[in-house]
């Protein structure tokens, strides 16, 4: 470990991690896809700040690099790509359906509490309990979002925020080697998800005028 270990700098690290978590709730609360993408961009930027701050706290320049990569990839490139996809397919104003907000939020809070309780024993051996709890909570909320929102675009954003939780966990662990490589691997997964949706969606639109599909639909109706 080593490095600057003031209580205040740790507190700020938790505050940034907590902000990522709160933005996860923001994602759960958002209804429009455009807003969803913006909330994800905000989450990624806070995540980048959290990574950079952890780099300073742990005196690990690699984490600052990770922060920059996250900022460029998840904070800028992916949201821009998503906005372009949404704009081209004209569903950026689409309302994302999901069951009532309140039960979902309550489930989210329950998951956060679960994460806190699961991570609590880490304190016994001076492991970073709060960082782990926050990362676990973001991961669980991402999964919750994927479950309650069956629509593909919203599910994609849920998956992306789940990956943000992974990065938060990686940067929060002291002395984790390969942090940059792992974060990049996670971002590759995120990029692949976006690219996949882009390719598949474009194709789906072309296939709507596919005669074979119409024929099959007609067959099913008879």
């Amino acid at each position, binding site marked *: *470990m080593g490095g600057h270990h003031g209580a205040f700098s740790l507190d700020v690290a938790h505050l940034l991690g907590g902000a990522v978590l709160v933005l996860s709730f923001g994602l759960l609360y958002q209804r429009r896809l455009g807003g969803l993408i913006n909330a994800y961009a905000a989450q990624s930027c806070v995540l980048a700040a959290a990574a950079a701050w952890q780099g300073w706290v742990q005196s690990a320049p690699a984490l600052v690099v990770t922060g920059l990569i996250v900022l460029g990839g998840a904070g800028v490139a992916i949201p821009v790509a998503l906005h372009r996809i949404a704009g081209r397919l004209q569903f950026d104003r689409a309302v994302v359906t999901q069951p009532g907000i309140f039960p979902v939020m309550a489930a989210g809070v329950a998951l956060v509490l679960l994460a806190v309780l*699961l*991570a609590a*024993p*880490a304190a*016994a*051996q001076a*492991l*970073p309990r709060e960082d*782990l709890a926050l*990362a*676990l909570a973001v*991961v669980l909320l*991402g*999964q919750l979002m*994927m479950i309650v929102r069956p629509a593909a675009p919203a*599910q994609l954003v849920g*998956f992306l925020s*789940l*990956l943000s*939780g*992974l990065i938060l*966990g*990686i940067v929060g*662990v*002291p*002395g*984790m*080697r*390969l942090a940059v*490589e*792992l974060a990049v*691997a*996670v971002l*590759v*997964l995120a990029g*692949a*998800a976006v690219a*996949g*949706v882009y*390719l*598949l969606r474009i*194709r789906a639109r072309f*296939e709507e005028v*596919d005669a074979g*599909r119409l024929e099959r639909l007609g067959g099913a109706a008879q």
Partner: protein
Amino acid sequence: MNELSLLTGMLRELVSAPGLVVLVPFAAAAGLGFVTDARLGAWINGAAATLAFLLACALPWEPIAGLLLLADPLAAFMAILTSFLGMTTAWFSQGYMQVEVQAGRFDAPRLRLYHALFQAGLGCMLLALLSNNVAVTWGALEAATLVSVLAVALPRTEDAARAASRQFVLCGVGLAMACFGTTVLYLAAVPALGAGVPAMSWSRLPAAAAAFNPAMLNLAFVFLLLGYGTKAGLVPLHGWLPDSQAAGPLPVSAVLSGSILNVALVVILRLRGLLDANPGAIAPGLPIMALGLASLLLAAFSLGAQRDVKRFFAGSTIAQSGVAAFAFGLGGAGATFAGLLHLALHTLTRAAILQCVGAAVQLNGGQRCAGIGGLLLRHRALGLTLAAGMVAVAGLPPFGLFTTLFLILSGTVDRAPWLAVPLALGLAVAGWAMAERLLALCLGPPTPDRGPGTGLPALVPAWVQLALVLVLGLAMPGPVAAWLAAIAGAAP
């Protein structure tokens, strides 16, 4: 150790046998990207896979546990199995892909991409098996998954695209959980091994596992089991396997998804050892057994309803993967031995079956079960091979899977008798469904051919694989048995 000696140490590892096993497929993948001639590409593909297999055969004599790579007996065994499968599938795919190209389902650029992806996927899986770093194993498995998603989407049909996206979503969630589990595992190891690379290396973890933080180890176990369980085709996230197998090009599903399953099961086996060594952690056996048994039962009872022949065999794969996981969960040298052997034999049998199914589907121009029948009457060699494979997978003598299933079942009666009943039930149902389908596919009323066949040479890999299954089941050579028993004894 200063930077320079670190670097030279790494380089030396890369040019040792394990390093070359990993590097050869990657180099071949890079090279195949530039080979425009389809026949030459297919030959390079086969040659590279063979070279990787031959190099892997040297692994048992060159055990290392270095900074980058780990070639302990378990890793060596799995690497040999994976590269053997890669070799046979690469030779099989020569004839198979030729037919696909003739049928217009593949064009030249896509065939080139297919060859490169095949080698890249093989390299990623070998890296995952031979890496000495938990995180690198995860990263390699992620890369292998992405490669296999790409390969599944290669035919560019609507079904392929849908299967690829479904596979991506489910495997993505599984990989995410595995990544988080990896982080937590590292965290659990920090109190024992200190921060840094040792806390992430497979070779250092087991010895120090007793001093891990038990709560963190439990948390890591849950995430890793669910995450790698997804990749092993275990419930609850097994849904990607039938889709990708039904839609993707067959050799890909034979080598890629089949071997990814094995890699994930090996990680679960290693994880089990870590939890066993820690007095404060939960007993890992029961959760693993529960997942394995649930997969077996779910797959066995849905087998009969499958109308698509490729999906049918994917269901059987889930069932058998569940059996192997169950054996690993059961624990003890005997059950682990049986589980490892089952894994290997089923992988070989499955590849043989899939090669036959691929040929049959090409002959019939469709993969609906109802459209394929009477293979034994019209294509005697193909029908016989498929029948032999299905008999083997159903767990009937004289094939090796009978031996391993018997070992697992008797081990269950010995150690957890109350689980023997559902296990036997699942095996019987799966075997029954297999026999029923065997009668329909091989005997039944013959169906007319609608496409070109691959010819006898394409069946040679299947014969080799089935012969191995037969030999290993009936009369396993003494040294091999001793080696496998040593692996099982060293593993928990």
